[in-house]
């Protein structure tokens, strides 16, 4: 047997012995608290997602009803209009579901898994913005709208953030009771979900059919919402 093998075995043996320690009995304070036993209502796997999902869906519809629709709405191909809405909507739902629904047999949602799905969703949105921005004669370009790329992106970015606010707030409330670790990764997913919900509303509102604007003003704002979510949830749960 080589020295390395014996060292490895030594470490394994050492670690095997470290798994348990004799625990002291529960403290009087703990027993007093536990003594106030009563049946509690437990959480369902889907409950938080349904609540945050409904709030995240209703809010963009509310702000959509308060905003003027894009002028080329009637002229755009229906398939593109609804296909785009589906991409934005599904991105929001997927990121939110993975952030709030624990896997079967788990109590807590998995942060790394949620963050991966959020990144995939943002990538899908980026591809859609780069390759799928449709334009019809009634659509506006930057010059026709008399705005710069920066100014138009800022305006749409604020709209996305407005749409993301409710999802972020409800997500934070839902997770408050669950005591997760790695909140920043869940925050990325919830922020991305909220941003995509805002982008969903913007899809019917923004009159500019310019790829660069959609990439920076819409998808870029979703990325910023994800970063804001990570910061907020880090401050709430990890700090």
């Amino acid at each position, binding site marked *: 047997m080589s020295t390395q093998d014996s060292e490895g075995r030594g470490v394994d043996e050492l670690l095997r012995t470290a798994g348990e*320690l004799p625990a002291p009995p*529960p403290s009087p304070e*703990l027993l007093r608290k536990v003594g106030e036993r009563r*049946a509690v209502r437990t*959480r369902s796997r889907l409950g938080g997602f349904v609540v945050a999902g409904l709030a995240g869906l209703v809010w963009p519809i509310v702000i959509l009803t308060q905003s003027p629709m894009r002028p080329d709405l009637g002229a755009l191909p229906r398939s593109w209009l609804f296909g785009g809405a589906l991409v934005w909507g599904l991105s929001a739902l997927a990121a939110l579901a993975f952030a709030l629904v624990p896997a079967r*047999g788990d*109590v807590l949602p998995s942060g790394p898994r949620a963050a991966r799905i959020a990144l995939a969703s943002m990538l899908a949105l980026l591809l859609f913005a780069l390759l799928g921005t449709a334009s019809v004669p009634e659509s506006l370009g930057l010059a026709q709208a008399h705005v710069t790329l920066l100014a138009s992106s800022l305006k749409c970015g604020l709209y996305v953030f407005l749409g993301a606010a409710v999802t972020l707030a409800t997500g934070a409330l839902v997770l408050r009771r669950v005591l997760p670790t*790695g909140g920043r990764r869940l925050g990325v997913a919830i922020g991305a979900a909220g941003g995509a919900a805002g982008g969903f509303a913007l899809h019917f509102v923004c009159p500019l059919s310019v790829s660069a604007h959609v990439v920076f003003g819409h998808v870029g704002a979703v990325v910023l919402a994800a970063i804001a979510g990570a910061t907020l949830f880090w401050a709430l749960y990890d700090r």
Partner: protein
Amino acid sequence: MLVAALDPLSPPCGGAETGLLESLAGLMDPEALEASEVMARYCRGDAAAFERLYALLAPRILAYLRGLLGDQAAAEDALQLTFLKVHEARGSFVLGANPIPWVYTIAHRTSLDELRKRKRSRVRLTKEGTLGTEPAAHLTGVSAEAQQDREDRPDPAVAARALGALDDLPENQKQALLLTKVHGRSVAEAAMITGSTPGAIKQRAHRAYLTLRQKLGRKRQRDEAPAGPDVVAAGKERR
């Protein structure tokens, strides 16, 4: 079904979980299944369930906390606090889920709070606003008081010695090693407990394992090497 899904709080633990547990029986190991069943009874307000849950989990949670905090007394306090938090958060448990990784997560958060508290209170002033005298310490860096405390306890035995060997490891490597190699949690579970990614956990656990093996190898060499004149001469030369 839909109504249940819409309600974030499912009905109080009732008969429904029996079927759920049976359906999960194939997915969980017997230990997780027992913990899940005990947790369900605990949520129902069963008097004996807390004692059973404590007996089932406290020894390993204490060993985990001792490994993270490096101090038996602090680990015992954190254990009580962990179970207090479990009691307060039992409403966020998902029926039929495995509570073990969840309790580890709560313990992990509790230990982080304790470590932060220690960082903040590193310098203590007396009532007069002056620095108090430093407590006497052994050359090992352990305070005389803590050393006395350790000596007063019944022999902490092999587990505590093994845990002591981990004290020099960096915090995140120690967490990864404890969870995967000592407590037998899967990489995914360890990632969820620490709020990290599975890749990072694998890497950290591997690094910690190598460091520990080197340390053990060096210790063995020291123990085996005769302290003859050559060793003394080499020591003088180095100086």
